């Protein structure tokens, strides 16, 4: 009873704080809400999660999109409302806030930052964890990929959680090596750029067949689900979401499954500059940039790069990407680290200009188009995290 009282005080104070924050236009108030609740009741997370069925979605790329897909699948397939966090809030405060918002919803689907996943695994006691992928990202913060999978491996040792993983990623296979129940999905194998050696025993991995089975046994567990090799990142994640939804008791019709893997949702936004429209893709690390480059179908391209904390302070990763598909296109680089990316692509023989602002970059492309007598250029932009957020903030009503 006393426990509940403390939690009620915590949520009431949190609500007041977040309203104030919104009134003063300091932000959406979600994170502040979570912080106040956790400060007043340090056991808020445990209490708010007790008796509920929780799915956590984690991995380097695709967390937010997959979480949205999963919410939709579970709501459609169970007829129940699902609690979730909006705007990709995936650390302790954001998760607390999401859990407190509709405490009576039994079903909860949350994305979780890779480094917080072990803590959330222990505190929330989730029913299902979906692990999408692990590749290099924010190297200054997370350390190497191997360290993240080592932490997961050490944490995941109970048998009351079901994991859904892409087993083609050896780092995920290693992460769940001691876990009790694992649904393994394979997409026919694909070479992992960061896994030249085995995460479990450090032996060299032979990728001759685009797949791996290490002498130590890693990779030898048979997959439960076999999906098409042709699927790209977002579609692969959708397949994992379907398996997780089924574990949550949702009924997922087969037709829907096909529809999902063919038109997997991805994070694009449309920014307008006068009459000029720019399709913008948020991409934060080499793997997501490679995916985004495949989507460049126009000749007028903007690349926007910052290197603030969340972007990764070290821009070296820009050199891990092959930009040769941009050859012959018109490219303008912007963002605080525009020279890093501009120089990198110039070394690949790509014609490039720079501009201080995103709007300026659009203008430069328009000038370029005029020079080339192209009347209505279609524009596509790839932006790193804060570069995207800054621009999105200028385009009110656009959701990431």
């Amino acid at each position, binding site marked *: 009873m006393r426990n509940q009282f403390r939690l009620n005080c915590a949520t009431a104070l949190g609500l007041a704080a977040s309203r104030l924050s919104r009134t003063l236009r300091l932000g959406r108030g979600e994170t502040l809400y979570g912080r106040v609740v956790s400060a007043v009741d340090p056991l808020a997370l445990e209490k708010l999660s007790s008796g509920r069925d929780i799915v956590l979605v984690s991995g380097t790329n695709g967390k937010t999109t997959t979480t949205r897909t999963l919410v939709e699948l579970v709501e459609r397939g169970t007829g129940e409302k699902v609690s979730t966090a909006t705007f990709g809030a995936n650390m302790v405060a954001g998760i607390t806030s999401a859990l407190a918002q509709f405490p009576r919803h039994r079903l909860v689907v949350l994305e979780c930052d890779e480094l917080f996943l072990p803590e959330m695994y222990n505190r929330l006691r989730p029913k299902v964890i979906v692990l999408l992928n692990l590749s290099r990202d924010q*190297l200054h913060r997370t350390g190497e990929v191997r360290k993240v999978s080592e932490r997961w491996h050490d944490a995941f040792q109970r048998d009351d959680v079901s994991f859904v993983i892409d087993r083609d990623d050896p780092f995920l296979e290693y992460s769940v090596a001691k876990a009790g129940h694992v649904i393994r999905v394979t997409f026919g194998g694909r070479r992992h750029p960061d896994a030249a050696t085995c995460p479990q025993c450090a032996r060299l991995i032979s990728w001759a067949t685009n797949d791996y089975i290490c002498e130590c046994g890693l990779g030898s567990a048979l997959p439960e689900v076999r999906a098409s090799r042709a699927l790209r990142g977002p579609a692969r994640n959708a397949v994992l979401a379907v398996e997780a939804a089924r574990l949550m008791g949702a009924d997922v019709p087969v037709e829907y499954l096909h529809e999902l893997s063919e038109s997997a949702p991805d994070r694009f936004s449309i920014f307008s500059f006068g009459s000029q429209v720019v399709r913008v893709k948020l991409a934060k690390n080499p793997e997501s940039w490679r995916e985004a480059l495949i989507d460049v179908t126009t000749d007028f391209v903007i690349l926007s790069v910052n290197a603030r904390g969340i972007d990764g302070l070290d821009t*070296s990763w820009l050199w891990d990407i092959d930009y040769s598909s941009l050859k012959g296109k018109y490219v303008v680089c912007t963002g605080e680290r525009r020279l890093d990316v*501009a120089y990198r692509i110039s070394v690949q023989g790509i014609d490039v200009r720079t501009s201080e602002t995103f709007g300026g970059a659009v203008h430069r492309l328009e000038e370029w188009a005029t020079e080339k007598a192209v009347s209505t250029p279609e524009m596509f932009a790839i932006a790193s995290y804060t570069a995207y957020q800054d621009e999105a903030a200028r385009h009110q009503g656009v959701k990431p």
Partner: protein
Amino acid sequence: MSGSASRTASKSELTIVRLYHDLLGTYGDAGNTEVLVHRAKARGVAVSVIDINPGEQVPRTAEIYLIGGGEDGPQTAALELLRADGGLTSAAGQGATVFAVCAGFQLIGSSLPASGGELTDGLGLVAAYTRYTSDPRSVGEIVTQMPTQDGSGLILTGFENHQGFTQLGEGVSPLGTVLLGVGNGLPTEDNTVTRPEGVWAGNVFGTYLHGPVLARNPELADIVLSSQLGELAPFDDELAEAFARERRTTLFK
């Protein structure tokens, strides 16, 4: 050294060997190769790049060898492969240029911690002794000053991200001295002591600077190239210079 003489004689051709990129290429260090190729081609030099993967023999007669940074396990794997192969040691002995970054820098030295933590012998191309300490990992932008013949010094910038600290042998020169960041050694309270970064011995270069370092410092790329090609024709690459200048002025006002 006869090998060295024959190398500098053939100035219109250059072979660059990129060693174990999949093992040691975690921080965009592959870019160093691309920059060398770009700047050599601009001088009319015919460049070929040979990628060496585990299981393939390391060529003995190339002019420039590059090794990048990576994690402890792959570092140990690469060290064992290079030791068993012997090609890199042999080429370095004949005057080839070796440019090694971070984990690569550590493994061309005399000793370093293996992935299990115990000390192991490095390739011994330079007298550099790396050990681990319990200090936090050195992560962040780094600025150093490299000595130049005219005495003015060359400012280098990069991004460091490493756990080990590296002590150079008596009389062995660093690549530069630290102006910002950590470099080879522990940060000292006493600011009067110069702090070394990297190593430079003959044609062997080692550094903790990522970035990639040769992209952020075109002058250093030219120093590496001229170690094999002799004097280079001028090359005006506005974007390269603007990038290098932006990093220098942002970090070191």
